[in-house]
């Protein structure tokens, strides 16, 4: 675990994106997470951003639409230039529907996999489409840490900001799996969030965070339905942090990460 006195990697939060069941964007989601509005869970509606060229828009799969939507929301809200930003894409898996169709084809007598389906199967599909949509030639980290993928992405982005002194856009996202994969990987719906992290405070920032490892248990949400969402979709493991930001409540927040370690986030509004 982090040693006492170690300086932990930290960053300012310059913009936030959010999309999930009954959570249509950050302003609306923040009101729900702050307890100012009630949560009405409805299935997440995904659409490909206009910023993608028409051909890519047609080809984009669910996780691509999700990642680009929340990423662009965070960047636009912060008034940042997406083309210059280093990015961290973190997801617990690729697109479940695309994977299902490939595995079904490979188990059939005709194993002709569609080229588009194959290139959409790479874990970095969202990063590739993001680059095409925004023109960003900056580095893109593409991570997976199973159910701890949000925390893994948060650590990576914070370390980028702290060490390289550059802004870093974290995009964490997961979408549902169809049967029969769903029985083995029961992710029920799509949830994504994006945090634009910067080394210096922007004009309208949401506060400052620092993070390190801990053995403490992950925080839960007071609203049982929202806590069920937190547990059901890996990217929604971010909700305790998003709730603290929405409430402007300073303090340590513990997020799910690995079997043997969690990530403790020190948030100051």
């Amino acid at each position, binding site marked *: *675990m*982090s040693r006492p006195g*170690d300086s932990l*990697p930290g960053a300012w939060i310059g913009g936030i994106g959010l999309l999930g069941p009954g959570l249509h964007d950050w302003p609306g989601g923040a009101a729900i997470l702050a307890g100012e509005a009630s949560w009405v869970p409805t299935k997440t509606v995904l659409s490909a951003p206009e910023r993608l060229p028409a051909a890519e828009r047609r*080809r984009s799969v669910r996780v691509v639409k999700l990642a680009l939507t929340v990423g662009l929301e965070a960047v636009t809200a912060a008034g940042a230039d997406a*083309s210059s930003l280093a990015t961290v894409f973190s997801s*617990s*898996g690729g697109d479940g529907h695309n*994977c299902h169709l*490939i*595995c079904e084809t*490979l*188990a059939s007598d005709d*194993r*002709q*996999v569609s*080229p588009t389906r*194959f290139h*959409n*199967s*790479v*874990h*970095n*599909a969202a*990063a*590739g*489409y993001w*680059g*095409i949509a*925004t*023109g960003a*030639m*900056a*580095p*893109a*980290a*593409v*991570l*997976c*840490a*199973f159910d701890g*993928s949000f925390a*893994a992405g948060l*650590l*990576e982005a*914070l*370390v980028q900001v702290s*060490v390289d002194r550059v802004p870093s856009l974290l995009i964490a996202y997961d979408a549902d799996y169809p*049967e*029969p994969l769903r*029985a*083995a*990987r029961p992710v029920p719906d799509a949830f994504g969030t994006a945090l634009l992290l910067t080394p210096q405070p922007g004009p309208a920032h949401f506060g400052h965070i620092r993070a*390190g*490892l801990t053995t403490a248990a992950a925080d839960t949400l007071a609203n049982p339905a929202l806590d069920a969402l937190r547990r059901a979709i890996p990217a929604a493991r971010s909700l305790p942090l998003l709730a603290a930001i929405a409430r402007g409540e300073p303090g340590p927040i513990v997020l799910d*990460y*690995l*079997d*043997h*370690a969690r990530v403790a986030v020190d948030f100051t509004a």
Partner: protein
Amino acid sequence: MNPLLISRYTATSCLGRGIGPMRDALAAGRSGLKPCDLDGVALDTWIGEVAGADDEALPPQLRSFDCRNNRLAQIGFEQDGFADAVRNAKARHGADRIGVFLGTSTAGILETELAYQQRDRDSGALPANFNYAGSHNPFSIAAFVQAAFGLGGPANVVSSACSSSAKVFASARRMIEAGLIDAAIVGGVDSLCLTTLYGFASLELTSRHACRPFDLGRDGISIGEAAAFALLERVSEPLADDAILLLGVGESSDAYHMSSPHPEGLGARRAMEAALAAAGLAPGDIDYINLHGTATPSNDSAESKAVRALFGASTACSSTKGATGHTLGAAGGVEAVIAALALRDGFLPGSPNTCDPEPDMNYLLASRSAPVRRVLSNSFGFGGTNCSLVIGRAQ
């Protein structure tokens, strides 16, 4: 950036287990590729297979991770004293001060492909023993390695197609620099599966021969499998003269196309420039470039333009994929190990199967002895993800 010590390294591929057989094959210009004879695969292509990968048994307490990819990982980290070096590092630094950052493109997806072939005829269900977390999920390889060594530090998998196991060096470098850890296991493991064999075939990117990187008649890749590992630590004095260091890492994105590189190699050039800048070096300081060199017409063309634009025509270079095949998510790690071998033993690797190389490059057909102080290793992938490493000798 501050250099890091690559205190131990190993690679297992179709050339054999560990760095001894790899070094011998590279010196002799021997390829490990063969016509594809995988069970049930009807493709006219060549592969680089690790012999005996399916015969490896994981320890009973790690059986939930059983899949070809993790078996290959275990074979890999048992070579060249790597596992002992990790245990020593654990004793020195503490289990929670060692990170695990590994690259893969498809992890153990072969298990899912096989499970789909065994779906219940009535319900469509996968077999009851199918374990998604331990095999299919990209993170399974890092979770497996972390569990195998009882490590408690940060861990993730980088899965950015064919740059994956080069980019893990960047992640580890930042984590060490940030003070979150003192050492990191990096590298990559990727194993043969139907998704990549049939997927690359559908894109018409696989060759019907053993691949011929940078040959004017090149016509596609040969897919291979491999496990490569390196242990990264902070540099502490005194440093042995023959110590191998990570001097620079450079990353970029093409922002161009999902499955074709930028035709002028702009992203590739940015990654190489960034790696040189991080190392504080000029192009003339590089003795050898291990090219990404997949042997597809468009990849090699883009890379040759980028290399010529930055280095001119004199820097010695080659792709070693004619020997190992393209090991996809493990390629960056394998080629970092080849760079370390070239530095340690003073040789420039040649390029088996290539006969008629691109003009205006110092492209090496055969291996030869030469003093080597600094190597640039390129790894570029689908979705326009690029990473270059600069690896060098301490003296």
